[in-house]
């Protein structure tokens, strides 16, 4: 009796063997992927035409300093040994030191990460809040004007360069209309009055009761989060529409109509609840996609997050930092993909109860 067949998940241990195998497989997949991530970044690091030793010690170092640094960086060892060092360091959180700041990269990243977290989270909340209802509307009014409008709005989200829209947004909403604050997370006036506890300024300012600072943060957050929200909304509304159309064509919808259930209930309670299962996965993936969007958005809005860290390091030829940042983003990306797989399993009662 196979323990990996969900149909057979009965017996003394219930669903445990099945869940165990599934988790085990996931862990293995993630482990291998993580290894691969490290390998790729390691390889990229070795491809660099820049001499890492020179970058570390500077042009004017003496030969002996150069040699010492060479050994210290482990460059005299064979490649696979170097990879092993790299791997074990990474697993303990040591991503090397930034060539620019001479400080551990992991600390730099930890410092800038909350800014990106706040931005991406605000973006996904906006994207879901608008994307799901618009997708439902689009599906229900399929082919009609509302559907076309939503699709066009979404299409713009797919086709416009995010950094360009960001610039236009700044031009219109900040420079011309003055509705929102400009680049940066918070006005300099407030910057030092807030003690950063979580790094998430909205929470920090609220916790300390500094409501004018809170309002200021909100004003700065509005445009970039709105931008990211727009892009995720384009994707989410499109997928919601697709899933809803698939659900509305199912037999159980006819059953509900036969029972005389009101149309709004059929859409929002019956169909959407079923569409929610793959939809949550889509939202998690969109969240991951916002990481990518944040790189360019943060550049435009001078947002001191992970994305800007990456581009700054790039412009300063700080390869260690670039690779460290890439690795961290890769890990987060894999984590979110994993989360979305798990969410699917949890939400679908066909799998859950067994």
């Amino acid at each position, binding site marked *: 009796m196979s323990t990996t067949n969900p149909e057979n998940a009965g017996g003394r241990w219930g669903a445990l063997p099945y869940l165990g195998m599934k988790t085990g497989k996931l862990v293995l997949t993630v482990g291998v992927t993580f290894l691969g991530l490290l390998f790729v970044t390691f390889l990229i690091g070795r491809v660099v035409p820049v001499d890492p030793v020179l970058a570390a010690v500077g042009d004017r170092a003496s030969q002996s300093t150069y040699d010492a640094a060479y050994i210290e960086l482990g460059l005299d060892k064979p490649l696979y040994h170097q990879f092993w060092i790299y791997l074990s360091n990474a697993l303990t959180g040591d991503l090397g030191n930034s060539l620019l700041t001479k400080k551990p990269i992991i600390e730099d990243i930890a410092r800038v990460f909350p800014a990106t977290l706040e931005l991406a989270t605000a973006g996904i909340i906006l994207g879901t809040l608008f994307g799901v209802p618009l997708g439902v509307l689009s599906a229900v009014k399929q082919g009609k004007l509302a559907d076309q409008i939503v699709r066009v709005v979404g299409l713009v989200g797919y086709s416009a360069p995010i950094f360009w829209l960001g610039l236009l947004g700044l031009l219109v909403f900040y420079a011309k209309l003055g509705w929102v604050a400009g680049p940066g997370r918070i006005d300099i006036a407030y910057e030092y009055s807030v003690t950063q506890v979580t790094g998430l300024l909205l929470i920090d300012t609220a916790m300390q009761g500094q409501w004018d600072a809170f309002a200021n943060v909100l004003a700065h957050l509005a445009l970039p989060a709105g931008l990211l929200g727009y892009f995720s909304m384009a994707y989410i509304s499109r997928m919601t529409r697709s899933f809803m159309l698939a659900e509305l064509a*199912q*037999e*159980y919808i*006819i*059953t*509900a*109509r*036969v*029972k*005389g*259930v*009101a*149309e709004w209930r059929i859409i929002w309670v*019956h169909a959407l*609840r*079923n569409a929610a*299962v793959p939809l949550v996965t889509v939202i998690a993936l969109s969240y991951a996609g916002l990481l990518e969007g944040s790189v360019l958005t943060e550049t435009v809005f001078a947002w001191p997050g992970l994305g800007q860290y990456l581009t700054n390091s790039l412009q300063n030829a700080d390869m260690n930092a670039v690779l460290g940042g890439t690795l961290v983003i890769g890990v987060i990306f894999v984590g979110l993909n994993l989360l979305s797989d798990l969410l699917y399993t949890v939400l*679908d*009662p*066909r799998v859950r*109860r067994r």
Partner: protein
Amino acid sequence: MSDILHVKDLRISFPSRSGPVEVVRGVSFDLGRERLGIVGESGSGKSQTGRAILGLTPPSGRVTAERLEFDGIDLRGASPATWRKLRGRRMSMVMQDPKFSLNPVMTIGRQIVEAFHRQDNAPKSEAKDRAMVMLESVQIRDPERVYNAYPHELSGGMGQRAMIAMMLITEPDLLIADEPTSALDVTVQLDVLRILDDLVTQRGMGLIFISHDLRLVSSFCDRVLVMYAGRMVEELKASELHNAQHPYTRGLLNCLPQIDGGQRPLPTLRRDPAWLA
């Protein structure tokens, strides 16, 4: 016993690349508190007839009829408000496969209670009690477990019984059963039919039984309507099936194998293009 449903010259057409295609071409019958069977092969239009009575033809289809009346209410072009009053309360439908016709993310109990709640806003406990009573009446031995179960946790027969419970809890006057046993094992088929039989007799409902199985229909129903290519080719009492006149019906009857021998080789149906006219 007066008739509750009147259908005269029902026509349903769907658009296609070469113009509108009529899938139901002039079906007429009257239904009292009796059992009417509609028999036909795939594409004969029998399912669409059933759906049209409930106003569930897909939006791209066009339904016309000289007369389509339920208990004095004209169903042609009925408003959504009219349908809300009729569907679930006075007319119901049991569909073929509970795997697809039940909402997979809702418990059975919740789905049954939803059918009941439509009537009057009865308190939750009463709704649950009624649902349990219904589940027992379709001979589900462990109604509590089924009430809290999800559709995929039930066998085909149990799911179909739950479906019947759900559709009869409001005590409708008319029940349309669209291939209710076709997705079930043969042994289970008879059980479900027996339950349906009892319930329909007890409540004095009108029943339209749609199927491709002529023998099943003739043993279960009072009258039989045979459909082919959208038309009614024959209408007769079930007891007089052996006296069928139309060559299609005769052909169907001849195809049924007899357990005690019969004709060799087994005859097949020969279709006359004249029947398509």
